[in-house]
């Protein structure tokens, strides 16, 4: 392929890089007990929340940042981050889209995810998180009919404190890890979702996260509870405006699936990855974990990671209930100087538990991609079954792809398989396509899409389209 096309595409500006000029109510940078008290007070939280936050904060002070991953970044100054940022019009929250700040709507339009269209065409309820406070929630009534609670985390704290109290931190305890603990102390908002017994959620729930205000770390907290026999599919997607300073995003996602329940969690992550020299870009350090609490529960993670300067996350499933199922489908793409250290943990505790891991890593430019996974079969997990496949595709001679699969088995009836391969696109494949008149770029795009197909297939329709487009944009020209 000509180096011209490569340069053209590699040097393409980040499409979604723009800053919307909206007044925001931002707290001065710094972290102390006072800041946490203030966040809690601003959100009018009950006492138990404040106590929980403070416990987390005090524990966080005793912790040190983990060093074991294969990613590198300059040290983060936690005192330079502003821990709270809300759109100004906090008091009179908009009741419908008409009341939403037109500039915000404009932002979404630029991103190609207009709320109007989504409501009409996709039938998706959108809880749009603009910086830290949810400003628009749609289809609430329709969901309420089914008994589904889908609201921002702050609303849930106000309206359903008993559920929050029962499940918050039950999957990711506040002591879990450095970033999860930080999140527990300072999280400002996020999504809350509760599917009652036997309900199949009528809509696919979706939250578009968007980081906007400069220097504001995003500390989202998502909690999804699927009661006995219920089903929910949850979509999460992100883009962020161009920015020079690295932004820290340390979210926590907790999923609880009770007996016979199923949660499907899909992510398309396209945050600003930094420029070609590695300047700027989001640090995406996220703790995602689901617990199959009871028999026959199922949790499925699907992620398409193309953005962020650093992606560092391991969506995991704890398979407690007998016959429960965990799945992890991932495509991680790194270009320029992006780094990704991602994978999953499947902890088999119950009998006949099954897990599937399909991970596809694509490295281009000077990208650094690592799969790090753990499959643990406990002594009581009779007949546990795991299948892992992690493949890496290397598209330049300066990128790297690593695999660190940990397998720990303590039960003789377990069957665990792991296979992986690393290679580049073969010249034969390319030649075959070229010979049929397909341009090199299209051919590469086609082959990469084929490489990822197993994962894309798992995505809901709307996301599958977006994901393919994303891959094309982020990849095509990066191949030489």
């Amino acid at each position, binding site marked *: 392929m000509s180096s011209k096309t490569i340069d053209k595409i590699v040097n393409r500006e980040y499409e979604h890089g723009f800053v919307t000029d909206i007044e925001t109510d931002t707290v001065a940078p710094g972290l102390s007990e006072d800041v946490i008290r203030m966040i809690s007070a601003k959100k009018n939280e009950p006492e138990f929340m404040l106590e929980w936050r403070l416990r987390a904060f005090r524990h966080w002070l005793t912790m040190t940042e983990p060093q074991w991953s294969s990613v590198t970044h300059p040290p983060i100054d936690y005192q330079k981050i502003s821990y709270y940022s809300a759109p100004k019009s906090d008091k009179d929250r908009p009741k419908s889209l008409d009341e939403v700040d037109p500039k915000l709507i404009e932002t979404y339009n630029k991103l190609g995810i207009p709320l109007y269209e989504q409501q009409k065409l996709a039938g998706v309820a959108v809880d749009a998180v603009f910086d830290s406070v949810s400003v628009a929630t749609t289809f609430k009534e329709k969901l309420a009919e089914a008994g589904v609670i889908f609201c921002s985390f702050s609303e849930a704290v106000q309206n359903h404190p008993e559920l929050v109290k029962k499940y918050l931190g039950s999957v990711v305890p506040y002591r879990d890890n450095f970033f999860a603990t930080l999140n527990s102390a300072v999280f400002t908002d996020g999504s809350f979702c509760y599917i009652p017994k036997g309900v199949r959620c009528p809509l696919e729930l979706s939250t578009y996260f968007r980081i906007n205000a400069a220097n504001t770390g995003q500390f989202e907290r998502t909690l999804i509870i699927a009661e006995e026999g219920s089903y929910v599919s949850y979509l999460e997607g992100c883009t962020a405006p161009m920015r020079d300073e690295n932004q820290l995003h340390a979210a926590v996602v907790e999923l609880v699936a009770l007996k016979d329940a199923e949660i499907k969690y899909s992510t398309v992550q396209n945050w600003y990855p930094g420029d070609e020299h590695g300047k700027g870009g989001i640090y995406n350090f996220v703790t995602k974990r689901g617990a199959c609490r009871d028999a026959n529960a199922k949790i499925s993670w699907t992620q398409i990671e193309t953005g962020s300067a650093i992606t560092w996350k391991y969506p995991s499933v704890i398979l407690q209930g007998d016959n429960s199922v965990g799945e992890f489908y991932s495509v991680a793409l790194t270009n320029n100087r992006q780094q990704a250290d991602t994978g999953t943990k499947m902890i088999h505790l119950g009998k006949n538990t099954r897990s599937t891991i399909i991970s596809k890593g694509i490295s281009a430019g000077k990208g650094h991609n690592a799969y790090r996974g753990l499959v643990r079969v406990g002594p009581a997990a009779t007949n546990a079954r795991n299948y892992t496949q992690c493949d890496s595709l290397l598209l330049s001679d300066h990128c790297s792809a690593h*695999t660190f699969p940990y397998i720990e088995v303590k039960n003789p009836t377990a069957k*665990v398989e792991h296979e992986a391969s690393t290679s580049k696109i073969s010249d034969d494949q390319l030649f075959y396509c070229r010979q049929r008149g397909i341009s090199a770029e299209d051919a590469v795009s086609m082959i990469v899409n084929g490489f990822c197909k197993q994962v894309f297939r798992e995505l809901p329709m709307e996301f599958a389209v977006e994901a393919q487009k994303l891959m094309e944009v982020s990849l095509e020209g990066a191949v030489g």
Partner: protein
Amino acid sequence: MTTISDPVTQYQQVYDQARTSLPGKDLNWLTKLRDQAYESFATQGFPHRKVENWKYTNVNNLGQQAFTPAIAIGTVNTELLATAQIPDLDCYQIVLVNGLFAEQYSQLSGLPAGIIITSLSNALTDHTEIVRTHLNKQLTYQGQPFAALNTMFLRDGVFCYFDNNSVLDKPLHIIHLATGDRQNVMSFPRHLIVAGEHSQATLIESYHGDKDQLYFNDCLTEIHLHDHSQLTHYSLIEASQAAYHIAALHAWQQQHSRLQAYNFALSGKLIRNDTRAYLIGTHTQCHFNGFYRVRSDQHIDNHLLTDHQQPHGTSTQTYKGILDGNGHGVFNGTVIVAEDAQKSKTQQLNKNLLLSPTAQINTKPELQIFADDVQCTHGATVGQLDDKALFYLRSRGISEAMARRILNYAFMSDIIDNVELEPIKIKLKRDLKGSI
């Protein structure tokens, strides 16, 4: 048993007492090497489970026991020596007792021209220059505290030098016996193998101990393969049931060289093998094969590293294990392909059979790839015997126990069938048949 609080201080004290009696104390370069090793061991400390390399292998028990370094051969258990010899194997033989050269039991007459095989302590005086230029040349102690310990206490071992174009006509069998009148002996055999251009050789290292004698082996084999040389290396570990056996094999391969290494870990309380090859020339071939049989309270840990630093290298890592009782197996295979090591081909496979509810396996096949034009695959499986295969055999009137043995045997047979030396193949088959 004496318990000690800080193993590092303990080893330092033993070293301070022993240092004046260690061979080569007049050689400045050697003293310097020992001092560096001493320093590295002191900074790294005794490994613990927070160290990634030792995550699944707990050496606390080892650290809590006091051992004294062997300084004299003592009485040799001739019965043990007889069992250590491989039937029908026509070979040169070196016997090391507690890591020390036992000349009277060794058989080295008739070596072809251009080949030197002697004890390392002799080589320190007779072949100082070759030893000086190769010993510890590129060894790193990072994550390898026991390699540092071995260098500190370096006393004896085997020195092999194969001159350019020389061929060792018969295999060399290095028999290590742990035997003596005392318990709690530690030995530090150190082997230095230098293979000149176009040379060929086969080495067998085997380790044996009295039934339940408690001892600690800290072994290190350094192999330097020059252009176009070929080496086949076998390691047979039949340590005593109470023994701690920590061994490392480090090889540096120049262009077009070929290393074939086999490791059979059959008995010992705690076995840890660090097998590493650095492919520093182009067109190298490196094949690691291994089998481990983990029983009762045994712990067997295999750490492999194949480091492709230059293009056109081919490597494989094939390890299989059968585990039962309360046995604990660990496999950690790493393949690194450096940025310029294009056209590298690597294959990595680890398969495990878990036969008892209390046995456990931790496996981690790891790839670190920095080049794009490569073919790297790896796989790992953990499972049990196939019910259908079992049923098939049962339906032919074979007892369940027999059927299991047949399947276990089939599971390991491809590793053993790979063995080139027929007498070793036969010995392994015979020994393992009994244990499965």
